[in-house]
């Protein structure tokens, strides 16, 4: 039973939906007015403030960027943050697809509840998530395991907050996948693995990459839950806590520079995944 969202492929906005029979047309006058107003709000809210960050960073010249990127603490945090984001995104790509598979194709009592469970990381404020994860998996937790102040602890927190992205991107695609192609393949003698590899997975790739893109972006910027679990122990600092340190130390230009570096990385990742996904789709 489909619980949430009607079936649709997770396409990126901006892609002309020629496959689905829609046409995009040039702007009409009312549409242009709408675009103008929307862009005005978007500028006031996002573009101008982010531009201010860039300007602040640039105010210190290339020197600021160089200092920030060569500072050993910051470099370590950058490497750790990106490494964790990549690991968690890969885990999410796999687990997210598996979870979506179970949600769509499996049957057992209580499955409907699982759909809600997936969305709980969205519903929980990050500071609360940090507190709860710390209580369970930190010092004195019931399992006897203590990941507070360790790298695995940070990975845990980030895995929690990014859980829903891939699942929710893949689920509707999986739901709308037409079974007859799979059945035809099976009747032609294809093994289950081949069917998965040749038919199902390619159809899911665009959704998985879309979800992965969101998961990566969220992973590198997470702050509230990470700050609680990492306790800023040796070698466990992330970029968002480093940025905070620069601000507190009065070096706003350096903080801005670090922020710009991270935003650029996120942008590159988004574009790369978008291009990858489009290339994969073109092969169909």
């Amino acid at each position, binding site marked *: 039973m489909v619980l949430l969202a009607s079936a649709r492929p997770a396409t990126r906005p901006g892609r002309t939906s020629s496959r689905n029979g829609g046409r995009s047309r040039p702007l009409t006058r009312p549409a242009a007015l709408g675009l103008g107003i929307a862009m005005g709000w978007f500028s006031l809210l996002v573009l101008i403030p982010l531009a201010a960050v860039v300007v602040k960073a640039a105010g210190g010249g290339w020197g600021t960027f160089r200092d920030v990127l060569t500072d050993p603490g910051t470099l370590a945090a950058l490497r750790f943050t990106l490494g964790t984001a990549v690991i968690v995104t890969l885990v999410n790509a796999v687990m997210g697809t598996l979870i979506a598979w179970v949600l769509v194709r499996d049957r057992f009592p209580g499955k409907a509840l699982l759909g809600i469970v997936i969305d709980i990381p969205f519903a929980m404020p990050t500071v609360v998530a940090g507190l709860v994860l710390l209580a369970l998996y930190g010092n004195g937790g019931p399992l006897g395991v203590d990941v507070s*102040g360790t790298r695995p602890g940070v990975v845990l927190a980030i895995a929690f907050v990014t859980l829903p992205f891939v699942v929710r991107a893949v689920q509707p695609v999986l739901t709308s996948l037409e079974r007859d192609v799979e059945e035809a393949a099976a009747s032609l003698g294809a093994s289950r693995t081949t069917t998965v590899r040749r038919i199902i997975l390619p159809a899911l790739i665009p959704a998985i990459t879309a979800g992965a893109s969101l998961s990566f972006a969220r992973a590198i910027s997470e702050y509230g839950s990470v700050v609680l679990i990492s306790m*800023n122990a040796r070698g466990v600092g992330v970029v968002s806590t480093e940025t905070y340190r620069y601000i507190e130390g009065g070096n706003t230009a350096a903080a801005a520079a670090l922020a710009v570096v991270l935003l650029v990385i996120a942008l590159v990742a988004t574009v790369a995944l978008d291009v990858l996904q489009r290339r994969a789709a073109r092969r169909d």
Partner: protein
Amino acid sequence: MANIRAGGALALIGALALTGCSGAADASGDSGSIAIVGYSVLEEANQGVEKAFGETAGGTDVSFSESYGASGDQSRSVQAGQKADEVHLSLEPDVTRLVDAGLVDANWKDNATKGVCTDSIVVLVVRKGNPKNVTTWADLTKPGIQIVTPDPSSSGSAKWNLLAAYGSVIANGGDDATAQSYISAFFDNVVALPASGRQATSTFTGGKGDVLLSYENEAILARQSGSDFDYVVPDSSLLIENSCALLKRHSDAAAKWLDFQKGAAGQKLYAATGYRPLPSVTNEVGDVSVVGAMDPATPFPAVATLLTVEKDFGGWDAANKKYFDADEGILTKIQSAAGF
């Protein structure tokens, strides 16, 4: 369709503007209100003092609007335009920032208490019963001792802690080199460096570490609210002096509030939450019994060697630069060498 959308957008912007007129914190000029921007521990401590102030002549019909948080954050917020009548922050540099921003008079320290409203000392917080027997600064660098202290690059509390640690070596006759190698060994034992004093306390209460460096008043207050740990007053410590100042534009009531805070009545109430009474009124305050202190009957034992930033470190401006400068600070360099 676009017309409706345009109308909707404009309506929303209008609504935003309207809420702007009603949402800002009320401050400055309105003689019956006081806007306090304070550092975190004050949130509980100020409750009693505000109530007592309300019962005085200068405090009738006065309303308080308060904001509490990490000292540096709060200072920065006021610098960025948050309205306030009084700032009451953990350490002097956080007020100096506002002087430089033109928000506080340069002569804010020219008074009987030199701009200080509350006092405390640095103590060593340990687990109940002090199982690892930590009683001196030297014990902190023993192998196997895990230290929790906040991060000096973001916490005022941390700077007091580190200067106290550094000063303990000097007080015992050591020279700068010895003190610095002590701090190195100290950092080797640090397991967590949370962003603020409060977070450090929460981290320790959550089970991390054997020793927490903290304010005495923070330790007492935590014990009052049920935290189950002990603290040790070491043989040498640093006098923590929390600065308070009125902003250039402040309400009349705020000036009376400041005087009340520093007076005997106010200091007695602060003592009830663990602060040491200011020297100017200690005699007037007399003996107090403080729940939560290690010995409630003698809540504020004398410290054998009590250092101050003014006398032993050359004042905050010099000390901040010498020890905590982002690039050249002595302690900053030791901290990054230790991997933090």
